[in-house]
């Protein structure tokens, strides 16, 4: 809530605009004027107003028409209709259509003063309620995880249940579902919360680097090891070690890690000293580990060690009721970060968001909102701001070639994984070389700007 009350006076008569503006300014309010309905709507797009004085009789677009749009798009703005003598009936109609009050020209000074006071009081209560609602909405938040769906509520409950114990938890879910946030929440709710939370993305390191990253090394353990270095296992002493993308750990190292979990001790690379550690292990994967076990890529004993309790996060498309709260959360966050006054997502745009399949899940939604906030020049995010999502959203009934569908799917997956080739290839279950070939074949390009507007050249 900004401290200064902002009022917009809409009237086609200059003299009314100016004298009402002058009168209100003496009250210390910030006052703007608009000479027509369309002009006032443009101004409302750009900045929020607490109170609108709206003349009923205006050419082009009359006050009732403006009122209807204001009530729909800027419901937080209170509206007082201004009417001339003899058009009280219209004013009454306006009240039925959601106007908060009306005034007949000319007004009694005391009436105007009392009315403004009354409405601003009302506005304060509305703002407070909005704030309250936001606080309620915050209770659908659990340690930075947001969700109103039954699925997420169950996950929140489960986190509470498993936090108290020290058992390993295997978190599964598609890329971008927020597995690390869940791991952090388990840590934050656990008795180890004052200890460190040490995450490591096992898919991000080649084998030899992953080993030193996890176990650390002694000085001179290998060329370039000028000094001893603690590994993540050692750093997690007293806290939680989070193995992200645990399915990427090579088989040999799975044996080593299994040993660490069983003995709670290890030695650094190139060292002999046994180091005792006390940590809780959490792991996450977007792979089907049972399938990987069958293929011989993952050790069964290691799997059972990690998967004492399993927690599955459903993809966003299976819980569309979470999309609005998440979208609004990210909108608030990015409009704050970019210092923009964006405070709504239009119902139409929300419909687009709810229908989109989000192959990259919450992370993709987050990126999409960020992009929309950055490109938006208005107070709201509308369908236009999400045009970059529509490419892969052509009507389902439309006849498409298999190639077209493949192209769109690959493009969506690339976007969902921030154009990380390895991750996208893995998600598509093809190898990197194949992916590169397809990118070339379809002429897919990573270009932030191209993705902000529908690219016509791409239409077949």
């Amino acid at each position, binding site marked *: 809530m900004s401290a200064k009350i902002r009022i917009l006076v809409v009237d086609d*008569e200059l*003299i*009314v605009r*100016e*004298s*009402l503006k*002058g*009168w209100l*300014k*003496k*009250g*210390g309010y910030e006052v703007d004027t608009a000479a027509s309905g369309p002009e006032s709507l443009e101004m409302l797009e750009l900045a929020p107003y607490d109170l609108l004085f709206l003349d009923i009789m205006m050419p082009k677009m009359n006050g009732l028409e403006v009122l209807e749009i204001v009530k729909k798009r800027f419901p937080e703005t209170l509206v007082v209709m201004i009417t001339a003598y003899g058009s009280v009936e219209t004013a009454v109609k306006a009240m039925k259509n959601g106007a908060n009050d009306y005034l007949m*020209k*000319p*007004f*009694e*000074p*005391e009436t*105007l*003063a009392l009315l403004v006071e009354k409405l601003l009081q009302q506005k304060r209560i509305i703002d407070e309620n909005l704030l309250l609602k936001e606080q309620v909405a915050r209770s659908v938040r659990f340690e930075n995880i947001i969700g109103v769906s039954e699925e997420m509520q169950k996950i929140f409950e489960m986190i509470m249940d498993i936090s108290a114990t020290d058992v390993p938890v295997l978190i599964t879910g598609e890329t971008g579902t927020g597995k690390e946030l869940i791991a952090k929440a388990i840590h934050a709710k656990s008795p180890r919360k004052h200890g460190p939370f040490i995450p490591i993305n096992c898919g991000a390191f080649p084998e030899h680097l992953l080993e030193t990253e996890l176990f650390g090394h002694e000085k001179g353990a290998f060329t370039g090891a000028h000094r001893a270095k603690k590994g993540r296992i050692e750093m997690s002493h007293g806290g939680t070690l989070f193995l992200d993308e645990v399915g990427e750990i090579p088989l040999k190292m799975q044996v080593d890690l299994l040993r660490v979990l069983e003995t709670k001790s290890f030695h650094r690379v190139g060292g002999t000293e046994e180091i005792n550690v006390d940590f809780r292990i959490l792991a996450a994967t977007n792979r089907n580990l049972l399938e990987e076990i069958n293929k011989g890529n993952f050790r069964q004993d290691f799997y059972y060690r990690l998967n004492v309790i399993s927690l599955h996060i459903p993809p966003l498309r299976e819980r569309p009721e979470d999309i609005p709260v998440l979208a609004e959360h990210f909108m608030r966050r990015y409009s704050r970060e970019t210092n923009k006054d964006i405070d709504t997502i239009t119902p139409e745009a929300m419909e687009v968001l709810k229908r989109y399949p989000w192959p990259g899940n919450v992370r993709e939604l987050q990126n999409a909102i960020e992009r929309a906030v950055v490109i938006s020049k208005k107070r709201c995010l509308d369908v236009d701001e999400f045009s970059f999502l529509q490419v892969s959203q052509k009507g389902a009934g439309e006849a498409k070639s298999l190639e077209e569908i493949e192209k769109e799917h690959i493009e969506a997956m690339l976007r969902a994984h921030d154009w990380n080739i390895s991750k996208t290839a893995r998600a598509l279950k093809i190898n990197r070389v194949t992916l590169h070939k397809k990118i070339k074949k379809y002429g897919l390009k990573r270009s932030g700007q191209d993705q902000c507007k529908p690219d016509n050249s791409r239409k077949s």
Partner: protein
Amino acid sequence: MSGESGVVGIVPIGEVKQVVLKILAANIQAVFNIPVDILNGRKSLKKFFNPNRNQYNAITILDHMERRWKQPHKRILAVVSVDLFIPILTYVFGEAQINGKMAVVSTYRLNRRTGGGNVSLERFYERVAKVGIHELAHTFGLVHCKENHCVMRASYSLRDLDYYPLYFCDYCQSMLDDVYRRMKLRTLKARSFEDLF
């Protein structure tokens, strides 16, 4: 008085009693602590009369004065004894250009007693001074004040007007001092009221 002109000029338009002007000037000088002159005004108000409303348009008066006035004074307060209105309001006690140069006060309604009859002369002069000070302060950029004990409190009835005092609260006073500093205005230290009589 010295040959140098005051900061505020008080200008009667139409028929206004000299004693009203003098008391108003003395009060403004005391409360604002800046020199005030009483100037010669315009005889006729005909130009500002609105036959539909049978009243005089305060905004037209201010606009006219702004265009015509060539006095060296930084602020002009016009005084009229006719009923004023602004287009959106049925009547006003006075009107001012916020952060502007011109203000006007009407004595027309200020002698009325709620429930009929007239108030004492003393009360009448006090009301004229309050409205005059209030409107003039608007030209210095002051807006309405929430403080009960302040002349900048908005008053839309004679009852309100009688309730609020003739002086600024500390907050409004310091706002005014800031404006003076920005304008590099010379204030009066101790100038006797009698100078004006």
